[in-house]
């Protein structure tokens, strides 16, 4: 079980969501979502597949538009931003994709350089190389710099994906299923990395997962998405101290079955 980060500032909300709704055709994925993310906090969003967890972080990062509701990220009302303002906000948000989404025609170094070249134009090549070294060292993959993504294992690709999001020093990290498809030992390494990123880069994070081991290891707070709404929230133990059969079934499936 993770010790709650003492640096969480409960007065400083980096993300505030009120009454968020999203439907695809006739299927309502998110019905009425209210959520706050505090500065320095790791918030885990749990839920079964298809409950709209990934949709939620895609809305936060501007990849999808909400149908209804208010979304405030780092003091900006996302619904009323121009594309240019949205791009400026996106530089403060890091998104780690479920399948890493590394550019497969580029080497690891080129993947990491890609956002730097576009958004840190004052940097010369020497500075860029130094920043790349720092993030690769942070994810423990300095030796992979000149490899192609296809030459990396699943866990290594996840780490490089996280390194790529860290390179612009985001304030918020969004992790989409960070441990999906990985072996238990690599999962533990990724969990440690998420906590290390929180500590070292002072990020606030939303971690989308259905892996309870991951939730327990990285979450300062856990929320559970059921029927398009957050039904339970609190620490890991608080969330599962319930008689709700759906929550109990979720727990039992992970730890007993």
């Amino acid at each position, binding site marked *: 079980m993770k010790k709650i980060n003492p640096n969480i500032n409960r007065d400083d909300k980096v993300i505030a969501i009120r009454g968020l709704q999203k439907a695809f055709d006739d299927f309502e994925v998110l019905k009425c979502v209210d959520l706050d993310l505090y500065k320095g906090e790791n918030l885990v969003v749990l839920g079964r597949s298809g409950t709209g967890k990934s949709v939620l972080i*895609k809305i936060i*990062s*501007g*990849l999808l538009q909400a149908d209804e509701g208010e979304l405030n990220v780092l003091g900006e009302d996302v619904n009323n931003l121009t594309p240019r303002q949205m*791009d*400026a906000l*996106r*530089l403060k*948000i890091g*998104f780690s*994709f*479920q*399948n890493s*989404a*590394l*550019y*497969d*025609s580029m080497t690891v170094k080129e993947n990491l350089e*890609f*956002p730097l070249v*576009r*958004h840190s134009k004052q940097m010369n090549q020497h500075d860029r190389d130094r920043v790349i070294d720092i993030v690769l060292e942070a994810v423990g993959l300095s030796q992979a710099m000149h490899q192609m993504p296809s030459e990396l294992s699943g866990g290594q690709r996840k780490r490089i994906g996280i390194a*790529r*999001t860290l390179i*612009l020093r985001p304030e918020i990290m969004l992790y989409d299923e960070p441990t999906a498809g990985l072996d238990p030992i690599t999962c533990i390494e990724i969990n440690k990395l998420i906590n290390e990123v929180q500590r070292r880069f002072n990020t606030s994070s939303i971690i989308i997962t259905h892996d309870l081991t991951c939730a327990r290891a990285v979450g300062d707070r856990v929320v559970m998405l059921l029927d398009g709404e957050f039904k339970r929230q609190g620490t890991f133990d608080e969330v599962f101290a319930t008689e709700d059969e759906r929550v109990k079934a979720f727990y039992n499936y992970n730890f007993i079955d």
Partner: protein
Amino acid sequence: MDPSTNKKTPETSTSKYVISRRFDRIFLEIHSIYAFNLRFFKEVFFPPYEFKEIIKQCYEVGVRSLPLISVTAFIIGIVFTNQSRPSLRDFGATSLLPALISVAIVRAMGPLVTAIIASGRVGSSIGAELGSMRVTEQIDAMEVSATNPYKFLVVSRVLATTFMIPALTMYTTFVALLGGYLNVHQNELTTITTFFTQVFDAITFLDIIASSVKSVLFGFTIGMVGCYKGYNSSKGTEGVGKAANSSVVTAMFLVFIEELLVMQVVNAIRAV
């Protein structure tokens, strides 16, 4: 319709609903194509300019197509000359072979053959590449890192095909004429000077302009179709295959339509 109650039966309303949904989808697709094309013209003139990516794509489209184009154009030149000779020989007009080859290759075969080869090689590759990037969320990754994926991926590729297909067309025309010359020289012992004098005498400035306009149009079409199909491909590996396949089929179809339209316009101008 149920005559006793004068109400629509469920079957009728369901089939109408299905038809309506189908029409909706067609109109949405038309709007989507229009918006995709319009966005190109909105984005192409404004910075940031992705010069490095444009040059890389020009290399991919142009230089990498050269071996295939060279062999195909050379063979077409030889075969076309060989096949035309018997008909001209019947009228004792084999001396007109260079002029015939020139008109056929410069006016139609050069641009058309280049466009067909490029549709197969470049169009499918763009469709598959962007489709695969869409499926593996690489396009989303670009977007969340505040990089405009449309500008980086689509504008650069469409510009590359629009610039390089005309260049390849000129090259195809030259190589095909060279193939034609070798065949004519072998059979009629014509010198290269005589051959190319007759070639240039047979074509007009309008032919060259029409050929250039066509190849620019073909290049834009091939790039745009490949990018549209790939960029909007549905999820899954099946979507990638479909994107690559329909890029080729749609681009070829549009190229032939454009060839027909430009030919009509040029003939109208020639008649004036």
